[in-house]
C-alpha cells in the first residue's frame, strides 16, 4: 500500500515558496568584527554612552568564549569575520513616517509573501512592526496603542525615547555573558522590537513583528525586549520567512521577556526561514536565545512555537519562575525535512513557591533530517510545591531521519512533583488504511494525522497564526508518506 514514488517526489521536491531576493541597495559595512564596528553601529544609531559601553563589555566577554558544541547538530565552522554586522535599507535614512513613504520594493516583498501590511494591519487589527533586515521601516497602530499607554516601537527608538526602561531591563534576563551567541548579539544587535505594557493594562490588540532577512551575507541580530508591568497582559506574535540563497546565514537573536507581579505574556512564533535545498545547501542558521523572567508573584509566561524552517535551529525558549505562584508554559511543534537539523526545547527554572510549568513538545522528522528535544526542568530547594508536567512526542516519517530526546530533570525539593513522558512513533499503516478506506487520499490522511498530532500546540496559537501554521505543515509534509 505504498504511495507512488512520483507523488512523494513531487511534494518533497517542492521549491521554497517564499524564495526570492528583493533588489534594494544596502547601506552595508564591510564584513568583519572588531571594536570599531561596534562603535560604528552604536554611533550610527546615535546611542547614549551606556549602550556603547554595554555593547563593548559584551564584545570583550564574547572574545573569551568558545562556540558551544554540545548540541546535536553539525555544520561547518562559522567565520565570524566574514559576516556583515550592519546593513540598513537606504531609503530608511530620512525615516518614513507612514506607509506611503516606504520603499515600494519593500512593500512588494510583503505582498509576494501574502502579507499586505496595511490590509493585514487594518483587517486583523494587528499592529505590525516590520523588521526588514536590520532597521524598522514601518510601524502601524502606534496611536491606538499610545492611547492605552502601551509602548511598541523598535528597540533603537526605545533607546532614544525610553533609555531608563532599556537601561533597567536590557540584559536583565539574558545577561551579556549568558552564552556565545547571546554575547555576540549583545555586542552587535542592530534592531528589534520593544514593548512596554503599563500597570494594569490589557494590550488592546495582538502585537506582531514580521522578520525578514534580505541583503546577502547579512547576519541578522535581532533584540527583542518585552516588559509587562504589574497586572498587565500582552500577546506577541513573531513570524518569519526569508529569501532563497545559497550561502548560510547566521541569525542570532535574543528575546527577553519580563513579567512583573500578576502580569502575563504570551509569545507565539511561526518560523519558516529558508531551510536549504534538498542537499542541505544554503539555509539559515538559527541560533536564538529566548528567555522569560516571571519576576513577580502570580505572573505567567507562555511560549508557543511552530518551527518549520532554518537549516539549523538551536533554540530553547525558557522561563525563570522566580515569583511565587508563577506559571511557565512551552508549546512547540518542530518539523524538519531534507537535511534540516533542529535542537530545540526549553528550560523551566523553578525558584518560587507553588510555581507551575507545562511543556508540550512535538517533533516531526522527515527526509534525512534530525530533530532533537533538549529540555531542563530544575526545581530549586526553595520551590515548595513546584509542579512540572512534560510531554515530548516524536513522529518519524521515512527511515532516514532521526528523532532524539534529551530531558534533564534536577529536583532539590521534596514537595515538588516533576513528570516527564515521551513517545516515538510513526504514521502507521493502519491509520493510513483507515483513512483511505473512507475515501481520503494518503496525502490528505498524513496531513490530518500530523495535524492531529500537533493539535495540543496549535490550539495555543492565536487564530490567524494557527491557520498559517497548519498550512505550513501541510506544505512541508504532504507526500512524505512512507
Amino acid at each position: 500500500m505504498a504511495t507512488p514514488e512520483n507523488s512523494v517526489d513531487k511534494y518533497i521536491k517542492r521549491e521554497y515558496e517564499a524564495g526570492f531576493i528583493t533588489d534594494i541597495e544596502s547601506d552595508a559595512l564591510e564584513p568583519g568584527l572588531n571594536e570599531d564596528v561596534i562603535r560604528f553601529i552604536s554611533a550610527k544609531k546615535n546611542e547614549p554612552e551606556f549602550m556603547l559601553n554595554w555593547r563593548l563589555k559584551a564584545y570583550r566577554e564574547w572574545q573569551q568564549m568558545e562556540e558551544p558544541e554540545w548540541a546535536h547538530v553539525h555544520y561547518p565552522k562559522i567565520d565570524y569575520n566574514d559576516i556583515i554586522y550592519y546593513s540598513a535599507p537606504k531609503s530608511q535614512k530620512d525615516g518614513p513616517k507612514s506607509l506611503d513613504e516606504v520603499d515600494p520594493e519593500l512593500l512588494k516583498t510583503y505582498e509576494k509573501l501574502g502579507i499586505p501590511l496595511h490590509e493585514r494591519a487594518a483587517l486583523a487589527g494587528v499592529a505590525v512592526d516590520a523588521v526588514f533586515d536590520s532597521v524598522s521601516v514601518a510601524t502601524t497602530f502606534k496611536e491606538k496603542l499610545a492611547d492605552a499607554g502601551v509602548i511598541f516601537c523598535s528597540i533603537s527608538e526605545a533607546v532614544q525615547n525610553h533609555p531608563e526602561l532599556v537601561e533597567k531591563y536590557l540584559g536583565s534576563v539574558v545577561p551579556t555573558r549568558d552564552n556565545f551567541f547571546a554575547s555576540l548579539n549583545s555586542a552587535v544587535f542592530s534592531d528589534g522590537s520593544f514593548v512596554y505594557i503599563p500597570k494594569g493594562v490589557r494590550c488592546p490588540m495582538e502585537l506582531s513583528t514580521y522578520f525578514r532577512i534580505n541583503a546577502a551575507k547579512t547576519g541578522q541580530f535581532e533584540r527583542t525586549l518585552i516588559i509587562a508591568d504589574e497586572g498587565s497582559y500582552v500577546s506577541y506574535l513573531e513570524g518569519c520567512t526569508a529569501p532563497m540563497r545559497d550561502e548560510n546565514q547566521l541569525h542570532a537573536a535574543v528575546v527577553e521577556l519580563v513579567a512583573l507581579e500578576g502580569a502575563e505574556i504570551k509569545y507565539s512564533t511561526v518560523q519558516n526561514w529558508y531551510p536549504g535545498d534538498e542537499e542541505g545547501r544554503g539555509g539559515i542558521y538559527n541560533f536564538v536565545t529566548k528567555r522569560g523572567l516571571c519576576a513577580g508573584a502570580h505572573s505567567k509566561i507562555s511560549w508557543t512555537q511552530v518551527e518549520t524552517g532554518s537549516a539549523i535551529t538551536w533554540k530553547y525558549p525558557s522561563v525563570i519562575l522566580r515569583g511565587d505562584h508563577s506559571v511557565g508554559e512551552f508549546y512547540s511543534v518542530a518539523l524538519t525535512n531534507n537535511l534540516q537539523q533542529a535542537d530545540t526545547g526549553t528550560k523551566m527554572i523553578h525558584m518560587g513557591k507553588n510555581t507551575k510549568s507545562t511543556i508540550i513538545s512535538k517533533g516531526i522528522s522527515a527526509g534525512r533530517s534530525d530533530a532533537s528535544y533538549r529540555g531542563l526542568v530544575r526545581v530549586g530547594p526553595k520551590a515548595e510545591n513546584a509542579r512540572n508536567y512534560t510531554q515530548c512526542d516524536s513522529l518519524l516519517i521515512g527511515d532516514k531521519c532521526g528523532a532524539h530526546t534529551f530531558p534533564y530533570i534536577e529536583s532539590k525539593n521534596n514537595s515538588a512533583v516533576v513528570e516527564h513522558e515521551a513517545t516515538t512513533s510513526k504514521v502507521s499503516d493502519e491509520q493510513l488504511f483507515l483513512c483511505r478506506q473512507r475515501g481520503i487520499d494518503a496525502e490528505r490522511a498524513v496531513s490530518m494525522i500530523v495535524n492531529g498530532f500537533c493539535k495540543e500546540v496549535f490550539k495555543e496559537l492565536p487564530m490567524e497564526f494557527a491557520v498559517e501554521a497548519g498550512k505550513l505543515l501541510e506544505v512541508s509534509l504532504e507526500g512524505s508518506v512512507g
Partner: protein
Amino acid sequence: MSTRTNPYQEFHQDCFNAAKAWGEQLPQGLHWLNAERQLGLEQFEQMQLPTRKTESWKYTPIAAIVQGNILQLKSAADKANAEGIKGDFYTVTLLNGELQSAPEIEDAALNVVPFANASDEQQNLIKAHLNKTFGFQDHPFAALNASTLQDGVLIHIKADSKPLKPVQIVHANGSGDEGFSSHNRVLIVVERGAKGTVLETFLDIASKVQMRNVISEIFLAENSHLTHYALNSESEQHIHTGAVFVEQQAGSQFVEHNFATGGALKRRDIQIKLLGPQADCKLYGAYLIGGQSHVDYHTAIDHVAPHCTSEEVFKGIVTDQGKAVFNGRIHIHRDAQQSNANMSNKNLLLTNTAEVNTKPELEIYADDVKCAHGATVGQLDEMSLYYFQTRGISKADAHRMLSHAFIETVLDEMDIETVHEHVQQSAEQFYQHCQDCAK
C-alpha cells in the same frame, strides 16, 4: 618537569604510576595478560579524568576518589571472612580483589575459573573476549581496571546446558587498609542455547575509605539466556565504580537486577548492545539512598539489529542528604526497524536536602519503532497517607508501607527467593531509617 597544580592531573599521574608498578611485580603465571594490561595502561595515560564539564559525569564529581587517597593496590589487611548471600549457590569470593575461595564445581554445564588458573584453551577464550565489549573512552575507570588486571574470574556456561545452581561472586574486603583500591574483573561467556544465573554481591566491612572498581563483561551467544544480579550494600564511606558491558546475539535474553544502598559514591554503568535480531533485555533497578550517599546509574541500550526489545525500570527513594543520578539512553540504530524500547525512572524525594537528577534519553534513527520513556520525581501522595490514617494506621507506618509498595514492583522481579528476602531486609532497614529521620 612541569609544575603540577591540578589535583586531578596529579591524581591521574599517581594512578598511572601505581598501576604500572603493580603490573611489573605480578607473578609469571599471569604474563599472558601483559598485552591487555599494557593496552589499558596506554589508554588510561592518554585520557583525562572526568570533571563537572564532562557530560556523563556532570552530576557525579569524582572529588571523593581524588581526595580518597586510594592509590594502594596491595592489601596488607587481615583476611576477614566476608559472606555473601546465603543460599544454594556456587560461591566465589574475591577478597580485596584477590581470589580467596572458589568452590569445587562438578557441573558439566559450567566452568568457573580464576584467570590465574586458566588452561591454555581457557586463556584463549579469555583473550578472545576480554576488553572487547567497550571502548576505553566510554569509561575512564575501565581503562584503569584493565591496566591492573590480575585475579579475574571467568564464568563459562556451555552450549545448550543449564548449570544446577546459580553462581555467586562475592566482592568483599578486609576491615583495615585505608587508601586501598581493588580492581576486580568478571568475564561471563554464555554459549549458544545455554541458560544461567550469576549474582555479584558487593560487600564492604572496612571502616576506612576504600574503592572498588569492578568491570563485568558478558557475552550471550544465539538463543542463550542469562540473569545477572548486581547487589550493592556497602558502608557509607565506600567508593564504587562499576560497569557491566553486555553483547547479545540473535534470540538471546538478558535480565539484569540492580539493588543499591549506602556508599559515599557509587557509579554504575550498564551498557547493552543488541547485536542480533530478536534479542531481548530487561533492566531493573532499585536504589535506596540516605545519609550522604551518592548513587549514579548510567545505562545505555543500543538497538543495533532489528526486531529487538528492551525494557528498563529504575526506581529510587532518596532521603537525608542523599543524591541520586539516573541517566538512561536508548539508541536505535539506522537499520533497527521494529524495535520496541521502554524506559522508566521514578523517584521519591523525601527531604529538601536530598537531590535527584534524572535524564532519560532517546536517540532514534529508524522510523518503524515503538519507544517510550518516562521519568518522575515526587513524594508520597498526601491523600494516600491520609487514607491510611483514617483507617487507624499511623502516619509513620503508612509512610513505610507506601514506600515499600513503591519499590516492591521492582524487587518482585527478582526470581531467587533468598535474594529477594535479602534485599527486602535491606529495604526494611532503610524504611526504618527514613521513619527515624522523619520524626
